[in-house]
């Protein structure tokens, strides 16, 4: 557990004094990052997120207040020792350009005196664990893409198996597709490792996706709200948080509601190569096409098929919801489907049936009513 108690950081103003009214980056922050959970610090640029994070490993010294890790005041520890016990991941990875990926990852274990061979074999494991090809171990950072560098950064931070991790916008310098991949793998990794993580981002979507709890900071370093992502979306404490959380938060909050058991409609399907007559025989204007393993491929407009169903005539705008997914995914599948029937697949990706938006809405309403009675609120927020 990382605990901030009345922590303030005032940067020296032009006159060079920290006292007086220098600019306050973090203002009387009291916060707990629970053991084994991800606590996300989020807020607009310049609100003191990085300062807060860097005070934990004493890259920045607080002006006042105490920060403790598992009850031990960080100020009382040897600074190098403290840092070696904390995984640290930063935005541009900060890999050492003159070292191979493998030697980057072994950095902290080597500082701690682990022998080279042990450090390397553990590093190889980690390199694979963060989703890199083992062959990359011999490469230099300059030979990696941004996303790969970030993975190495995470592996390097994990190398000495620290209980605590500090991550400062680790995924914000990569493109959205890679970012999503990295986020998903990060969550998967965390579910195995259960580290105590303090994670900084300016992206509220990332915050609600990754955080077990989210701390919203406002400029001047004041904690505005600390809550679970679902509560944050459902119940912002003030206009600032509401504005920061953004529009369509009602819709986004559905991400945290597991899809309930709903009765799905059976959907007649055709396969690739089906003739125009087969398609029209179904009798609906849009017909669902599935692959050999029963996986949904896309909708076909019956009137548009000339001779047979080919991949080029497939409409790909519709999203596919999973039975194990969220209400948001379910509703989105219905809304994005050209036929109005949302495609639902099982965990293995095989078509289970379809559902209309009008059938999802009652489930949402039912959930709202359930959330009003406190006993089941817990369940509703399960990720």
């Amino acid at each position, binding site marked *: 557990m990382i605990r901030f108690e009345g922590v303030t950081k005032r940067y020296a103003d032009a006159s060079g004094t920290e006292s007086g009214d220098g600019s306050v980056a973090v203002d009387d922050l009291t916060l707990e990052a629970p053991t084994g959970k991800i606590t996300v610090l989020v807020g607009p640029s310049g609100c003191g997120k990085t300062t807060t994070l860097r005070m934990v490993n004493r*890259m920045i010294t607080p002006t006042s207040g105490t920060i403790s890790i598992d009850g031990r005041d960080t100020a009382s520890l040897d600074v*190098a020792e403290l840092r070696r016990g904390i995984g640290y991941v930063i935005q541009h990875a900060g890999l*050492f*350009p003159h070292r191979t990926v493998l030697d980057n990852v072994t950095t902290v274990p080597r*500082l701690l005196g682990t022998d080279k061979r042990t450090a390397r074999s553990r590093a190889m494991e980690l390199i694979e664990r963060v989703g890199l090809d083992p062959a990359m171990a011999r490469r230099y950072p300059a*030979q990696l893409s941004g996303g790969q560098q970030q993975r190495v950064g995470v592996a390097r931070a994990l190398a000495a198996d620290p209980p605590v991790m500090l991550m400062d916008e680790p995924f914000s310098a990569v493109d959205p597709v890679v970012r999503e991949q990295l986020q998903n793998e990060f969550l998967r990794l965390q579910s195995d490792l259960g580290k105590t993580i303090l994670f900084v981002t300016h992206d509220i979507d990332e915050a609600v996706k990754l955080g077990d709890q989210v701390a919203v900071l406002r400029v001047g370093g004041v904690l505005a709200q600390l809550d679970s992502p679902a509560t944050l979306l459902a119940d912002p404490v003030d206009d600032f948080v509401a504005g920061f959380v953004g529009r369509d938060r009602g819709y986004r909050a559905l991400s945290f509601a597991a899809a309930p058991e709903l009765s799905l409609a059976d959907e007649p399907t055709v396969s690739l190569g089906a003739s125009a007559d087969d398609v029209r025989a179904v009798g609906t204007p849009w017909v669902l096409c599935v692959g050999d393993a029963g996986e949904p491929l896309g909708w076909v407009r019956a009137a548009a098929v000339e001779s047979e169903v080919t991949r080029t005539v497939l409409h790909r705008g519709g999203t596919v919801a999973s039975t194990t997914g969220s209400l948001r995914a379910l509703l989105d599948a219905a809304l994005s489907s050209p036929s109005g029937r949302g495609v639902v697949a099982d965990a293995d990706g095989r078509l289970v049936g379809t559902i209309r938006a009008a059938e999802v809405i009652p489930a949402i309403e039912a959930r709202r009513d359930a959330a009003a009675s406190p006993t089941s609120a817990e369940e509703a927020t399960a990720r």
Partner: protein
Amino acid sequence: MSLAKIFGWFTDPANWQGADGVPHRVLEHLLYTGLTLLVALVVAVPLGAWVGHSGRLRWLVTGANAARAVPTLGLLFAVSMFVGPLIQSDLAFVIPSITVLVLLAIPPLLSGTYAGIDSVEPAARDAARGMGMTGWQVLTKVEAPCALPLFLSGLRSATLQVIATATIAASVSLGGLGRYLIDGLASRDYVQMVCGSILVAALALVADGLLALLEKRAVSPGISGRATRVARSRARNSDPHSEPDSDGADRSDPDPRQAALVGSGTTGPVQATATTGTPSERDRT
């Protein structure tokens, strides 16, 4: 015919023997050069490293560069006149000569060291400290290896200048290859002068070649490959249809050693980068 004379000078056994022979003069020249570089390195490297590491007193680097404008020969006579009466023996000439040469060698070494350390990516430095490296470990394990290419360019530049300028030692009655120039001028033996110049140039080329070889061996391919990376990322950005980032064995990377070849040509004047170095907003808390 003149070429024949030069050939004749070089093949005359008399020019290869004794205190005035080529081997002895080359040895003297190398001695002055080596001594100069040693002293200059001892002064410039710790200083440059400290300025680069701490970000303090950057004006030292700028100041040292400005000192290059001082005319070498004038300075040599001035120092000789000042030191000469104080010391008996040959040292009265050796000390002024070496002093002047050291002053010449310091700016490129100082700039190279400083610019090298200063060019280390702030993120790498930050990560190094954040992972629990001590200041000394950051310097030796991260900053120094990353600074190597620029430092070595500085060293090459200093070596070339010192070899070329060490000829002035002869003007205060010391040895070295400068003797051929001074004596040749005095006795109007132009062949000897030309041959002396050729020897200086050859020595400079050989020294530079050896240092280039050292650079290739000592600099991590991960750093010297930087040039290829910039080129590639530009190419990638200009191609809108390129794959965003698929992981796994994807990129066809050039052999790192080949990259080293591309990157090692950076012997250009380091001084420019160093003197214009604006105080960057680096967090050094």
